[in-house]
């Protein structure tokens, strides 16, 4: 099996497992909805304020919902003690990372799509004309975040208090991707789009190149024993 087919098999396995229980997806979605509810009562934003604080709110929600989801990334392996079996499989460990990372990416993107729809609905925000850019930025921001998140979920899985450990390790490392994503989202929330858009999108691309490659190379050191 080639590397990508191996990764695809892991990806598919995680999707099947997730869609049987829907643990990660439900928790991410409910969490997102609750944050939007809280946001309304905390700030009661008018349309200008929605434009101003919306990008930050969205990405804060994406990030914390993502952490909730990623804490479950290795839950199946841990609860069933099947990590050993996964490691014994005749596949590259990098492929395990890639498959898991892509699965996390997909779950986050699904939850984010629903959150974006709810955000547009509850705050009467016209997302449709910005949908192209918004999808691109969401994809880029989430990719980098999911990649660093997946490897750090694997690190924190091995610690006591793994649920707390993941955000402690992940948030400082993921700060640049959050900055880039919030800034580029803020640029498309104004009409016409801000000049900074191109710059921050490029920044996200560079961050992704570094922080998808690096975990791919480092992942095998975590599984080893």
């Amino acid at each position: 099996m080639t590397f990508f087919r191996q990764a695809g098999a892991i990806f598919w396995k995680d999707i099947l497992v997730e869609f049987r229980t829907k643990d990660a997806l439900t928790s991410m979605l409910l969490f997102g909805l609750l944050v939007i509810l809280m946001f309304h009562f905390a700030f009661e934003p008018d349309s200008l304020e929605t434009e101003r604080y919306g990008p930050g709110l969205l990405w804060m929600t994406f990030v914390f919902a993502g952490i909730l989801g990623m804490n479950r990334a290795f839950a199946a392996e841990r609860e069933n003690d099947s990590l050993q079996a996964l490691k014994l499989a005749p596949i590259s460990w990098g492929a395990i990372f890639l498959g898991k990372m892509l699965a996390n990416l997909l779950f986050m993107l699904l939850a984010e799509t629903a959150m974006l729809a709810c955000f547009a609905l509850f705050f009467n925000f016209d997302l449709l004309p910005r949908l192209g850019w918004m999808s691109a930025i969401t994809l880029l921001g989430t990719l980098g975040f999911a990649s660093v998140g997946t490897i750090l979920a694997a690190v924190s899985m091995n610690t006591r208090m793994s649920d707390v450990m993941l955000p402690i390790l992940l948030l400082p490392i993921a700060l640049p991707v959050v900055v880039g994503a919030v800034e580029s989202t803020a640029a498309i929330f104004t009409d016409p789009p801000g000049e900074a858009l191109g710059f921050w999108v490029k920044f996200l691309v560079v961050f992704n190149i570094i922080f998808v490659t690096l975990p791919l190379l480092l992942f095998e050191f975590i599984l080893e024993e």
Partner: protein
Amino acid sequence: MSALATITFTAMLASLYLVFLYAPTETTMGEVQRIFYFHVSSAWTSFLAIFVVFIYSVRFLATRNRDLDTKALSAAEVGAVFSTMVLVSGPLWAKPVWGIWWTWDARLTSAFVLWLIYLGYLTLRRLVESPEQRARLCAVFGVLGAVDAPIVYMSTRWFRTQHPQPVIAGGEGSGLDPQMRLVLYLTFLAFVLLFFYLWRLRCDLERTQEAVESLERQAQLREAS
């Protein structure tokens, strides 16, 4: 006393003399500006330390020599101390000069994030049981954190350029008096020596601790049998 200890001690004394007696008093800020030499030197040293963590983490992953892990850990701990000094001396200087304790300036923000990365690293160390696994996981996080640190700096700097400066505009980098620059460089040199001295002490301490632990284990085994 070792040669390094003697040199460090002399250099620290010399830098105290230079900072308090040789360096001219800054015209607008007055005496309080002298904290600048310690503040900036600590900041540079804390970045040097994360670089040392990076080198030894990579070397550890490549060779699995436990002593390299001891060196990475010790550099991170001493780096955390210097990083804390940055965060303490910064507000002490900012309050009388700018009238505020904190500003989200790129350098301050990245020093803060670096401190969080150090703390994440040290927390991770305490929460993994097996020493061998602890070394591997920390090395992986050390590499990610060290690669992230300059990116955090760049992203916060670019973030700033898109936003208005809060209180003051320029930094101390612009047009530094030659006498002041000399004092700064020599103080930095003294701090680098101090870093290497503390680092060596910390490595020795860790090795002693490991030796004690292994002796204790042997004694327990002997008792059991």
